[in-house]
């Protein structure tokens, strides 16, 4: 059976309009993408949708109260709220640098949560 699915690529604000052609649930063609990331997104979205989660974590002894964080790579969409639970339990101590690992393995995804901004000591 051949089927066609339309998606909007969310990898960047260009928001390319993607068309995925499937035959017997196998992807046969992806079109509409401006760059290779779009094709990867379409493949993931049809088979195993993933999202990067961004949030903030409490900081002790810093010039600000919170440090922004992100999952180092996208996590399965169904795990987003479990990842948030781990993020809300975590804390960091200043100074914090971009890329510092704040959670090693969030929600058992094997993916770390890293700091996404610099926080100097107060």
């Amino acid at each position, binding site marked *: 059976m051949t089927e066609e699915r339309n*998606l*909007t*690529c*969310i*990898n*960047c*604000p*260009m*928001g390319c*309009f993607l068309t995925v052609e499937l035959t017997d649930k196998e992807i046969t063609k992806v079109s509409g993408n401006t760059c290779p*990331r779009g094709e990867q997104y379409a493949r993931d979205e049809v088979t195993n949708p993933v*999202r*990067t*989660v*961004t*949030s*903030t974590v*409490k900081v002790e002894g810093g010039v*600000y*109260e*919170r440090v*922004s964080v*992100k999952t180092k790579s996208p996590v399965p*969409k169904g795990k*987003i*709220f479990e990842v*948030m639970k781990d993020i809300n339990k975590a804390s960091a101590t200043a100074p914090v640098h*971009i890329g510092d690992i704040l959670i090693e393995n969030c929600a058992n995804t094997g993916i770390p949560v890293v700091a*996404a*901004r*610099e926080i100097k000591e107060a």
Partner: protein
Amino acid sequence: MKDYDIVIVGGGPAGLAAAAAAKKAGSDSILIIERDRELGGILNQCIHNGFGLHTFKEELTGPEYAQRFIDEVLTLGIDYRLDTMVMDIAPDKTVTAMNRTDGMFQIKAKAVVLCMGCRERPRGALNIPGYRPAGIFSAGTAQRLVNIEGYMPGREVVILGSGDIGLIMARRMTLEGAIVKVVAEVMPYSGGLKRNIVQCLNDFDIPLLLSHTVIDIEGKEHIKAVTIAEVGPDRKPIKGTEVRYTCDTLLLSVGLIPENELSRNAGVEMNPVTNGPIVNESLETSIPGVFACGNVLHVHDLVDFVSEEAKKAGENAAAFVLGKAQEESGQKITLHGESGVRYTVPSHIDPKRLSDNLTVRFRVGDIYKDSYVSVYYGNERVRHVKKRIIAPGEMEQVVLLKDDLLKRPELTDITLKIEEA
């Protein structure tokens, strides 16, 4: 305070990129003035990802993107002042600023780059009757509260307006445990990017009601509920379509306007459509030596384009103070937007002053499907590009070739149009 050749007003992504480019173009006397306690501008509160994919081939969050440019400015040894507010820019480019340590001071600049960004439309612009109880925030204020202060404004949320910041906040507050009941948009289309509708609303099953608006707010001290109704083509509420939503928070995401009080007072000519300065091919305003870029010029959705535009403005400011700017040739080509094209940046060009091909950025006033973006040199159609969809929420661009323009010394008008299939 010592004098500087180039004063950059605002230390957001536009100001940072302009400063770095001016320095690399040979100017050694540059000062960035920023009223906030840190560099980076509004990106500091935009903690979501999706920035810089095209510039750095990596998907960054707002603060990470800003840090790359902050690092560059620090490495280049460019001077900056934080917690310092520019109060006035005189037509002769004397910049008056103020802070706690220096008090009020003046700098006689040779060139000024306007990089003040934009601000949110105030809620007073909304005609909602009734009291103004607590619990009503602009989406940008809520973004700062949640992302910088770590404070959640409420638990049951309704959002009016589908601008990007509102969409991003719908997801952000959902992740923090709030229930976002609905996003209402008075227009028949969203003002935000498609990708944000997909990943911020659809992912969490948050309904987006197009052609709907808030017609009543309940609660005297604190907001308790709102009533939302469908609107007709005249944007007036349709009787019988009212639905009441209980909530403790109402976010307003009704658009951004460039922050141009300083530019107006300096006497810079403004474009009534963008609320930003009118600029030429060099991003120079009606005052020679005063340049503009980023959101103060026109509201951008993609920070990559802000950085690109700001780089040009910085280079041109350096050329101006170093006496390297190309003389005006006398040929002035005016750019017009017609049939759907609301405005163009730049507004006019001198082709002999182009250092490179010219990127013209514009926005449309409605949704167009399977239509063409056409470019006319005089009456001659030189470009006719098919687009699957063109929407008001997404900035468009066309690149005009310098050589093509130089071949037409008689050309006085370029028109951009949307033509239906």
